[in-house]
Every structure is written in structure tokens, then in C-alpha cells.
């Protein structure tokens, strides 16, 4: 039996060594290949970048030399295009790049979508989104695996960029569960009006999408979205309320102070924290008593924020000093003192 085992082990080892040997040869060969490809790509970029500059930035004529003819050249052109698109927002430049991609790179991406190599397929989808190649949307729909979340996400991203109505439709169907940052990314491509439309139907949306929507709309909109957001302050879901408060704070306008005062007594510390922040957009005379209440809050973060909000007002310094003299709450006094000290040092 031991004989057999030895034989077995020996053969396993031999096979594996052989495998390693082959793998090593392959790796070395592949590395050389990659180096060569990289070098060729660099060369091609050097050769054509001036032409591209002329074509894209100035009104250079379109010449056939610009059309990439091999895979390496296509990768080079991708690199050039992405360098432009990720840094420049001129509509004309973008349009030129999109048109070129649609005319000359479409076939390539179509083939890549059919590839069995998952990475290649994903990369193709990334580029379709980057280069706004509308005609390939149906090809994408066909070739993705609807069970794979990451592929689905990419498809929705493409909708969000290129077929916004369809995107809204799909999102409202709620068959998805992406992460919050995922939703944020998807929503980031929409205009404020569309986001407002979604906001009206926020109850239907998935939880992560709800939070993402609030954050995004607060980041993109300003006065125009305050109405919609303020309605959410009465929502049952705590996290929605907190996000809404945060969004409103980001916009930085208080129209009706009365709406926020109830939050001072909220049982949820994050809400108390957010109003402490929000109050900096109202004059101290109206908010001082509430802020002082928050300065005596049981939660350290709330106290800290209340103190820094007070000190930001020109009359805050004085007010804090008066407060220290009249209160018994040691924690509050500590916090107030720290903030006063910081202010004195900065001056």
C-alpha cells in the first residue's frame, strides 16, 4: 500500500511540476507579449495624439488614419478618449468623441459583449456607458446575466445615462437591490426634475434607493427641492428623516424654523445632532434657547455640534459666556469652554 501511495504522490508531484513548468513558460511568454503590446500602444498614442488633438479640439478634418485597425489601437484610442472624457466637459468635444465611437467602435464592442470572458463583457459595458453608444443598448440587454447584480447595475447605469425614462420605469419596478452608493451613482446622472418625480414616489422605492435619492437630490438641487424634502420630515422611517435633515442642512436654507423645533426633543440623537447643525442657518436670537438645550444634551456629539453652531454666530461668544455663568450642567460647561478656547486661539 505504501508503495502505491509513493507512486501516487510521485506522479502527482511530477504532474504538478510539469504544470508549473508550463505555467512558467506561459507567464514569461505572456509577459513579453504584454510588454510588446504596451509598447506598441504607447507608440500608437504618440503617433496619433496630435491628430486627435486637432480633430477633437480644433476642427481638424476626419482622416482614416484616426480609425483604429487593431485591438491594440482600439485600446489606445479608448485610453485617449477616456483621458478627454474624464477631465473635460465641453459638449462639443464630448459629442465628437461619442460620434466617433458610435461609428467606428460599435462593432468591436458588439463582439466584446458576446465574449465568454466575463471581464471583457464588463469592460465593453463600461465603455458603452462612457461613450454613449445608444445602439448597443439592446445588445447589452441580451447578453447580460440578469442574476448577476453587478451586470444588472451596469445596465441600469447605461439606462440612467442614455435612456432616462426607461431608467425611471425600471427603478420604480423595484426588482433590484443595489447598495446605497450604487443607487447614488445611478441617480447622479439624472436631472433634478426627474429626481423630483422619483421623490414623489419615494415610498415605493427600496430602502437603500430611498436614502440614496434623498442624498442625491440634496446634493444636486437647491431651493427648488426644499418643498419635496420638507414633506419627508414627517416620514415614519427614522433614517429617512435623518437623511432629509442632513440634505436640508446641505442646502443651507431654513424657511420655516417651526418645522425643525420639534426635533430638538426627538428621542433619536442623530436627529438632535442634525438640527443642531441646521440651526446655524437661522439667527441666533431665535435658536439660542434650543441650542442651549442641546448643549446640555446627553449625547456628546450633540453637545459638541450645538456649541460649535452657537460660536459661529457673532453674538455666540457672548451668549456662551452667559450660559456658562448660569448653568449647572458640567458637561455643557466643559464643551462650551472648549469651543470658546478654540475660538480665542484662532483669533
Amino acid at each position: 500500500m505504501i508503495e502505491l501511495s509513493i507512486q501516487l504522490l510521485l506522479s502527482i508531484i511530477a504532474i504538478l511540476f510539469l504544470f508549473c513548468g508550463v505555467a512558467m513558460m506561459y507567464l514569461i511568454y505572456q509577459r513579453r507579449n504584454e510588454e510588446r503590446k504596451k509598447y506598441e500602444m504607447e507608440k500608437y498614442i504618440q503617433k496619433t495624439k496630435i491628430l486627435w488633438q486637432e480633430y477633437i479640439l480644433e476642427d481638424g478634418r476626419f482622416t482614416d488614419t484616426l480609425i483604429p485597425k487593431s485591438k491594440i489601437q482600439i485600446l489606445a484610442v479608448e485610453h485617449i478618449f477616456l483621458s478627454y472624457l474624464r477631465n473635460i466637459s465641453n459638449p462639443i468635444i464630448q459629442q465628437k468623441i461619442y460620434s466617433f465611437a458610435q461609428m467606428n467602435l460599435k462593432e468591436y464592442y458588439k463582439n466584446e459583449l458576446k465574449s465568454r470572458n466575463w471581464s471583457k463583457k464588463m469592460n465593453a459595458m463600461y465603455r458603452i456607458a462612457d461613450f454613449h453608444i445608444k445602439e448597443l443598448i439592446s445588445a447589452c440587454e441580451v447578453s447580460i446575466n440578469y442574476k448577476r447584480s453587478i451586470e444588472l447595475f451596469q445596465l441600469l447605469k447605461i439606462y440612467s445615462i442614455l435612456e432616462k425614462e426607461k431608467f425611471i420605469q425600471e427603478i420604480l419596478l423595484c426588482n433590484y437591490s443595489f447598495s446605497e452608493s450604487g443607487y447614488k451613482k445611478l441617480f447622479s446622472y439624472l436631472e433634478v426634475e426627474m429626481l423630483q418625480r422619483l421623490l414623489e414616489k419615494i415610498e415605493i422605492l427600496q430602502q437603500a434607493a430611498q436614502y440614496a435619492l434623498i442624498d442625491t437630490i440634496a446634493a444636486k438641487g437647491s431651493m427648488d427641492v426644499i418643498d419635496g424634502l420638507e414633506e419627508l420630515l414627517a416620514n415614519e422611517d427614522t433614517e429617512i428623516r435623518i437623511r432629509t435633515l442632513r440634505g436640508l442642512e446641505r442646502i443651507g436654507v431654513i424657511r420655516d424654523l417651526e418645522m425643525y423645533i420639534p426635533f430638538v426633543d426627538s428621542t433619536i440623537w442623530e436627529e438632535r445632532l442634525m438640527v443642531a447643525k441646521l440651526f446655524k442657518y437661522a439667527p441666533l436670537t431665535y435658536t439660542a434657547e434650543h441650542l442651549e438645550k442641546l448643549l446640555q444634551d446627553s449625547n456628546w456629539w450633540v453637545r459638541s455640534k450645538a456649541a460649535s453652531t452657537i460660536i459661529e454666530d457673532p453674538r455666540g461668544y457672548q451668549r456662551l459666556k452667559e450660559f456658562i455663568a448660569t448653568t449647572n450642567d458640567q458637561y455643557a460647561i466643559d464643551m462650551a469652554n472648549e469651543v470658546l478656547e478654540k475660538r480665542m486661539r484662532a483669533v
Partner: protein
Amino acid sequence: MNTLSKTVQKVNILKVINIIPLFDVLKANIIRSHMELTVIFLKATVSDSYQNNLIEAVEEQIAHFLVSKVRNTDMLFRLEGSLRWGILLPQNGEEEGKAFLNRIFQLVKNENFPSDSAFTLQGIIVEVKNDQVMFDDLIAKQFEVLSQLSEPWEIEVVTSYNSQPIERVKVSILEENVIFGEVLELTVQKMIVDHFQLETKVFSDGHEFLQSDWYLSGHTHIVIMNDILPRENGLNVLHTLRKMANQKKFIIYMMTNRKSLRDMIYAYESGVDQYLIKPFDLNLFQAQLKRTFARL
């Protein structure tokens, strides 16, 4: 209050000899600090029916008037020959000089003159934009032009000395992505700005930039850089540049795609002049750059 009717003591006004060294200093600053300089020459014409001894009195009155109206950033001086004065206006251009002169004339016209000391003024405005002009040339020009003026209250603008020398300005682009760096370079080079000659250079990391001595010269230097750079990031470069003794020559544009508010605020506080959030519009960028040049 009628300042003209007061009999006053002789007032002290600079003479031409005193002014020449001042003029030379200001002239040098035109190039170095992008300062403007305008010279105004005034001639007063008194009605002929006057005797000479009254002319002196009038001259004193006008001198007093001018001294009171001239701003303390300007320098008043007396020229050879009677009833002629000059005013140096540093930091003012032609348009401001004209406005100033018009205001003076208006004030004089509005004052109620006693009939025995009525006079009219005429003036020329010369903006100096280069440092090749000698003060004597100005005096000579002044003579020539003022003698040709015929109408009372006439103002003539002399443009013989406003040729601006071409200033060499350096533009550095610090961007990791080589292609975009070159696009920026092209965008900058394509700009046509009067009186400026742009020298551009692209760097792909912060360290390379700081190791070169390209940024050490005294030229006005516009730096367009990304906040994240390999080897020495944007913030480090910013600090290094702003710590230099002649840091005023740097105008710094910072590009970012991180959009971290805190970092942007801090960068402004540390001396960034303008932020560009990627992706940005190149046309807008050009316009901003042009405006920067206009302010130089």
C-alpha cells in the same frame, strides 16, 4: 467756501527735478508689479486783460486749489513756465486720468470766480505703459501738444507712450494623465493674449516640477495643477510655492475630481486662486485664464 479768493502764502509744490527720480521708480514698477501710471499736464489760460502781477496771484490760487483736490496717492508738480502743472497718477490708467481731470475741470467751472481771476484750463493725459520713456520726452511732448490746444477746457489724450512691452509669462501644467496635460497645454497656447508671451511646460508629477528650477525665476507664473499628483501632491507643491519670498508671482489653479469641500476650503485658505472641478469646460477655463491675464 471760495478757496480761490483767499490770499494765501506760497504753497510748496514739487519741481520737475524732484519728480524725475519718482517717475523713474514708478516707471520701473510698471513692468515689475503691473502697475499703471498716468501723467496729466495742465495749462491755465488767464484772460488777456491781466497784468503780470496778478498772474502770480492766480497761479498761487490755482496751485492751492490743485493741492487740495489732488489725492494723496498722486503727485503734483510745477513745470517750467508759468501756469503749468503736472500730476503723476500711479495706479491709474488713461480712463481714470480722464475722469479725474474732468472732475477737476467741473469743480473749477462750478466755483464762483471773482471776475478778476477767471481762467480756463486745458489738459493732456498721457498713460505710460513701458519703461523706456524718459521724463524729458514727456515734458517736450507736453510743450508740443499743449501749445496746439485751442479750445478752453479741452482735454487731449496722448497715446504715444502706451506701447506695452511683451511680458513673458510662464505657465506650468502639473497633471498625471499625459494626454490631458497636453490638451491643457494646447488650450493655453491657443489663447491670444495681448502683450503676453506664454511659455508652457507640462509636468507629470509634483516632484519633477519642484526639482526643476523652472519655477524659480521672477516671471509671473501661472500654475495649473491637479490636487493629487504622484510623488509630491498638489497641496505640498502649493505650500512650497506660497512659502517662497516672491510667491506673489504665482497664480495657482487647482483641479480636482475629489470634490471634498473641506479640502477645497483649506486649499483656498492656503493660497489657491481658482478651483477647477473635473470634468470642466475648456472654454470656461480659457475665459477664466484670460480674465486672469486682464487683471495683470
